[in-house]
Structure formats: structure tokens, C-alpha cells
């Protein structure tokens, strides 16, 4: 870690630093640790600054040429033995230059158990977004997925690792369910009553909240990565290319164009159908939810929910079924990418 070269983090922390300088109150941070991206939110209840890093890295053999190339391009990296590890948002852009493959510290919402460098890279990446606390008692609220059969004990390890790291940075950690964080960010006017759904890279997280109390939470171990890899397999293209196309040009309101576009439509529909089915199943099974109550709004957030037409397809899939609850409306978060972090910030700010 001593060899860390971190010019790339300046952009991310500039807003937060200036904000900290003007605020006389204690720092509060909301942190969304997603499989695909790590997002922070800082500020107050009226305005928040967000910082983002791609939750990815790649390693190349050490050479002075590589090192100077990275330095001259101001790419964040550190030296680990005989390797240079490039991490964060620049990793995707520079991986092909070094003929390297991007790796992920996390998979399916938790630390990737098959990635030995996962913890180290994630902590390094977080350090670019989370400054050391200035005084004791500062609160950092971070998102955690709901438990599922897929995550199992890995979730406990993931959460405890994050808590330990947050404490090391001088903060009091506060874990917030990812779906609930979406509710906290977007449903203040509804007194935090409604359904928050965060569709991320590794999984979809859902929380049914009544007055900010999570009465039902669950996760579906499918997300943007599932779509990328499934499409990649059927069209014989690398998942990274599929991901790039998905993020740049996918429009679900139009009929699919080329074969990648068509396959994306198919797997988006599959994800949406699975999500709606699981939501209905979970609500039906739950003993906690009131059977007859007011219609609940549904908020969709996360990078996977961003493509144009996602909300409409989700709503259609919902309306096609007989639901065990009434839906007021289905809406997309004001900023789907930062909603979870902003919700975590609201929770952090509410702590005395």
C-alpha cells in the first residue's frame, strides 16, 4: 500500500473535500458498495455530492515502462510484489491497452471468494472515496444486500470486512439494507412507505418499507452481470463488449435491432419477470405485511434499471399479474446510480 499511486482519486474526493471544509457539523457519508460500482454521497438533506469508482481492477507484470505509462496517464495503481494493480474507473479503459483482463473484487453482491486480492483492492478503492474521519463519532452508513441462499456465510464475511474497514477509517459503521436505502432516498414524501428495488450489477435487492421500517427484504442473485454474460454466451461476444453496448445505446422502448440488441431485450425481460415473480412470492409468503392497506409506490434504482424503457417493462410485467398488494405507481429514482448511496446518507444524517 505504501507504493500506492493515486492521482485518479482526486476527482472523486474534490467535491467531498470542499464540502467538508465548509461544514461545521460532523461528517456523514453514505456508501453504496455495489458489485459493479462503489458510490459515495456526502452533504446534507438538501444537497449531496456523489463520488463514483468502478469496482474493478486489473494486474500487469511490473516494468518501469508500465509504471511510467500509468503515471503519465495519472491512472491510480499500486505495486504488489512483481505486479502493478490498476483499480477503479480507469481500469476498464486501460485494461485493453495492457492487454489485461478486468477482474472484480465482488461478485453477486458480496466480496468475491474466488478472488484472492478482493479485500485489498476493495479497501484501496474505498480509500479514494472515503477520507479518514476527522473526529470520533462520525457515521458512515453503507449498503448491504439482503441475505439469500446464494450469498450465505459470504454475506457475513463481506459485511464484517466492511465494518472493520469503516472503523479503521475512524467512522461508526451503520449497515443499511440496499432496497431500504432506495426508499430512504426517494420516498421521503411518502413517509418512507413503499417498495425500493435496487437493480445492480450482481443482484437485485428489494425492501418493502412501512415508515422506514423494513418489513420484508430479499435479494435476487441476478443483475446486470447476469445479462452481460448470458448475452455474451449466446452471441459469442465478450461480456465487457455487451456491457459497453448495454450502457451506451440500449433502448428497451424500441424493438431490438442487431442480435446483441435482441438478446439484451430477451434477458432484460427474463430478469424483470424473475424479479416480479420473486416479489409476488415473497410478499405472499411473508407473515409480516398487512394484507389490506394503502397502495404502495415502487421505486426502481441501480445501473441495471437505467436503460430507457426498463420502468415501463417492469410496470407491464407487474400489471399482468394478480398482486397480493396494491401498487400506487412505479417510478425510476431521480438518479438511479446514486440512489442507494443517497439513501444511506439520509440514514447516516439521521443518527444523532
Amino acid at each position: 500500500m505504501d507504493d500506492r499511486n493515486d492521482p485518479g482519486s482526486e476527482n472523486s474526493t474534490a467535491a467531498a473535500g470542499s464540502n467538508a471544509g465548509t461544514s461545521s457539523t460532523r461528517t456523514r457519508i453514505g456508501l453504496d458498495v455495489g458489485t459493479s460500482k462503489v458510490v459515495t454521497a456526502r452533504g446534507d438533506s438538501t444537497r449531496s455530492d456523489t463520488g463514483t469508482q468502478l469496482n474493478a481492477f486489473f494486474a500487469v507484470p511490473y516494468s518501469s515502462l508500465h509504471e511510467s505509462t500509468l503515471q503519465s496517464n495519472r491512472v491510480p495503481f499500486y505495486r504488489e510484489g512483481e505486479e502493478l494493480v490498476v483499480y477503479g474507473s480507469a481500469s476498464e479503459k486501460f485494461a485493453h491497452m495492457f492487454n489485461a483482463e478486468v477482474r472484480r473484487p465482488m461478485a453477486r453482491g458480496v466480496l468475491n471468494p474466488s478472488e484472492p486480492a478482493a479485500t485489498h483492492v476493495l479497501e484501496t478503492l474505498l480509500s479514494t472515496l472515503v477520507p479518514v474521519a476527522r473526529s470520533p463519532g462520525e457515521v458512515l452508513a453503507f449498503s448491504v444486500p439482503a441475505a439469500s441462499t446464494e450469498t450465505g456465510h459470504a454475506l457475513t464475511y463481506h459485511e464484517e470486512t466492511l465494518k472493520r474497514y469503516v472503523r479503521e477509517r475512524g467512522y461508526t459503521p451503520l449497515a443499511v439494507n440496499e432496497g431500504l436505502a432506495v426508499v430512504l432516498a426517494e420516498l421521503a414524501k411518502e413517509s418512507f412507505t413503499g417498495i425500493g428495488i435496487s437493480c445492480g450489477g450482481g443482484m437485485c435487492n428489494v425492501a418493502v418499507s412501512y415508515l422506514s421500517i423494513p418489513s420484508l427484504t430479499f435479494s435476487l442473485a441476478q443483475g446486470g452481470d447476469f445479462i452481460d454474460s448470458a448475452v455474451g454466451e449466446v452471441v459469442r461476444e465478450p461480456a465487457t463488449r455487451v456491457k459497453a453496448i448495454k450502457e451506451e445505446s440500449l433502448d428497451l422502448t424500441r424493438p431490438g435491432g442487431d442480435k446483441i440488441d435482441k438478446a439484451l431485450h430477451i434477458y432484460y425481460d427474463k430478469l424483470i419477470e424473475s424479479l416480479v415473480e420473486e416479489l409476488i412470492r415473497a410478499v405472499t409468503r411473508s407473515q409480516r405485511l398487512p394484507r389490506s392497506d394503502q397502495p404502495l409506490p415502487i421505486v426502481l434504482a441501480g445501473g441495471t434499471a437505467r436503460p430507457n424503457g426498463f420502468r415501463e417493462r417492469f410496470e407491464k410485467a407487474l400489471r399482468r399479474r394478480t398482486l397480493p398488494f396494491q401498487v400506487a405507481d412505479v417510478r425510476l429514482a431521480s438518479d438511479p446510480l446514486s440512489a442507494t448511496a443517497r439513501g444511506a446518507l439520509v440514514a447516516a444524517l439521521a443518527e444523532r
Partner: protein
Amino acid sequence: MTAAHEAASSAEQYRRESEPCSRELRAELARITDDIDDPVIKLRYLRSAIERGGATHIEHVPCGPVRRVLYRLHGLKSLDAVAGDKIGAKSLVARTRARRIVAAGVAGSLLFVPMLLVGLAVQREPVAPTIAPAAPAAPLAVAPADPQPPVEPLPESLPADALGVVPGTIWLADRGPGWELYSNGLRIETTYKVRGEQREYRVHHRDGTLEPDTYSKPAGILFHTSESDLWPLEPDFARQLRRGTVGLLHYLQKEQSYNYLIDRFGRVYRIVDDESRANHAGHSVWARNDDVYLDLNSAFLGVSFESRWDGGRSLPITRAQLIAGRNLTHYLRQRFAIAPEMCVTHGLTSISPRQGLIGYHRDWARGFPFEAFGLPDLYAVPPPSVALFGFGHDDEFLHAIGERWPGLVAAEQALTDEARQRAVPVEAIRRERQALYRDWLMVEERG
């Protein structure tokens, strides 16, 4: 619970599944938080109100209204947790009032318990107008209870109902103490009637001139929802339903909020008499042909349905209310020769002059059954607040109503077209028009 346990529990609060609190407590807390804009303070308050002790035992109280009052007090007491924060004036006032009520209640119970018990023992339900003892009926087909001008010709004929014989004109068919019965089946309960301030208003013309005459006859009807507490429409809640309406009537009578209230069973109550203005419209604008009305409290009769408007996604009134509302509308239109396009909803007329926005009040901003009332669909008409005075709308409003009604789309399109023609930003046009509204209002107030 140890401190360590408490800390652990607190740390888990945003991820551990818990049962939601009772429906009644949720309703009370949601109502109190309506007045808290800041999401952080709102969250802090809700957490405090839900987690603090004292609410769990309330659910065992057998009497619904008492339970609700206790929940309300619990909720208001929990405002102490955010006392240092900026919370709405309404909540502060409510909290202060609640404290006074509690203090007065304690003092009262100490001093007057015996009297109170005796009083309760002999207390009877307020005499409902429907079970009022029969009194000698007034002669049939006489003039209504209140003096009224002769019926003027209608601007158009009333639509005939699909079934049954409908009298060609509506007259007072019978009357008794506290009620009037009209020939179209409309029965008006008058026990809560009060006289208010004399109805007086002036009319602007679209060219900016202000008519010199002052009018006192209502020119229109403004439909509202009471936004009051609603009990389920089920036999088990008959008592609460009845008491809820009585409480609402007393409040409306005190505040002189509407001219008429239609309860959920379709009973029509006259609250502020027809000759007096009620405080129902706030800042509102409506127009017909060349006439523009800015003081709708005076120019319009306020008719409210005991209900909560839910965004217009479903009809929030009962069948009985719809029938009674239609009969009342027919009667008022005939009595005051009100044009159909002057029967409009509060949500279509309400504005916030300070913010330059429409929809300050949103009741019936969408979903009023104009057709069932034999009225033209005024959602298709460009609202004068936008077309004439350039008021805008925000995302919150759009979110509440779901989508813009066709008249609003047309009015905003016209503003955009004008801006394009004049090669100025549409915002400049809006500012110009809103300044016009302020000028007109000032002229009217001076007059």
C-alpha cells in the same frame, strides 16, 4: 436491555426485518410527518416515534376513537425528539395544543371526575337530523327556507337521468326542523348552518378591465374533498363513521370552510349559508368566456365530499355521495343559474402565487366525474391560471396527478408557441403573465 444490546439493535435498525406498526399508528404518524419537509428530520422523528415505548399498549385500548387520540398524542409527544430541528408550524401548534389538552384533561379529571361520570351517564348521541322527531310540516311547494332571488333561466337544460321521472324544475317539496327536501330527492340537513361574511366579488375581463359592479350571487360551484380521516365503510365502524362526520361538521362549521358537505352516506349538510362566502378556495383562478374570477371564495359555492383525494386514480367517493352531489349540483345550478362550465374542481383552479405554480391544493386535480354530474369535462379546458397567468407546475405536482390533463397540455403548448413566435424564453412569458395576475389582484383588493 443492556447498553450493548441497545447499541447492537440500533445498528441493525436499517436491515433487520420488523413488523410494521399498527395501521392506526401509521396513519397518525404519516399525517404528522406531512408537515416535516426535511427527509432527515422526518426519518429521525419516525424512528423515534416507532421505537420509543408507550405505543404498544395503546393497541389494546378497545375504543377506536380513544385509541386514535392516544396514538396522536404519542406521535405529537415524539416530536420532542426533533424539537431542535426545523419542523413545520402546523406540527408545533399541534404539539402545543396536545400538551394543553393533556394538561387540561388531567386537571379536569382531578376536579370534575364525579361530574364527568354523571355527565357521561346521561349524555346522548347528538340528535341526528335523520331521526329528528317529526314536526308539523310546512306547506308543500313553498319558497325555500332562505329568501332567494327568482330563478333565472338556465344557460342550458339539465340533463335527464337515464331512469325514472325527473321533475322539470326543482322546488322545495317539504321541510322540517333541521332539514329541507327538494323535488329531485335532494335532502339538505341544516342543523349545522351558520351565517358567514356577506358574499361580495367583482369580475375582471380578459382585456384587464375590472367591472365596476359588485356581485353577491354565486357564479359557480367549486368541488372539494374534505381530506379528513376516513373509517372503513363497514358496519363494524358505523359508530366511528358517524362520530367522524359529526367531528368534521363541527370543525367545518367553526372554520366556515365550505357551503356544503356531503358525507359518505350521501347526506348533504349546509354549513355556510348560500348568501355567505366560505373559506374554501384559497388562491384560485377561473374564467368563463370574457369573465375572469380571482376571488373564488366569494364567487363560488364550496361543495365538499367527505373523502380523501388519492391522486385521481380511482373515484374516492361513494355511490351515495355521487348521487347526492349530482342532485345538489342540479339544485344549485337551477337556483343561481350557474353555467355548467362554472362547476369546476379546486384542484383545477388552485394556485400558489408566491411559487408561481398551479396545484397548491390538489383535490380533484384529476378524476372528478364531470360526466356523471351532467357537466362538461373541464379537464379538457385550458386552465386560466396557466393560459392567462402563466402559472407553471413542478415535478411534485406531476407526480401527484400522474399525467397532465389535456387542458393543461394545451395551455402550456400555447405558451410555448407564443414564446417561439415572440422569440423569447417561455419563462419570460410566464413571468410577464404572473405579474399581470398580481396587478389584477392588487386592483381588485384596492377596489
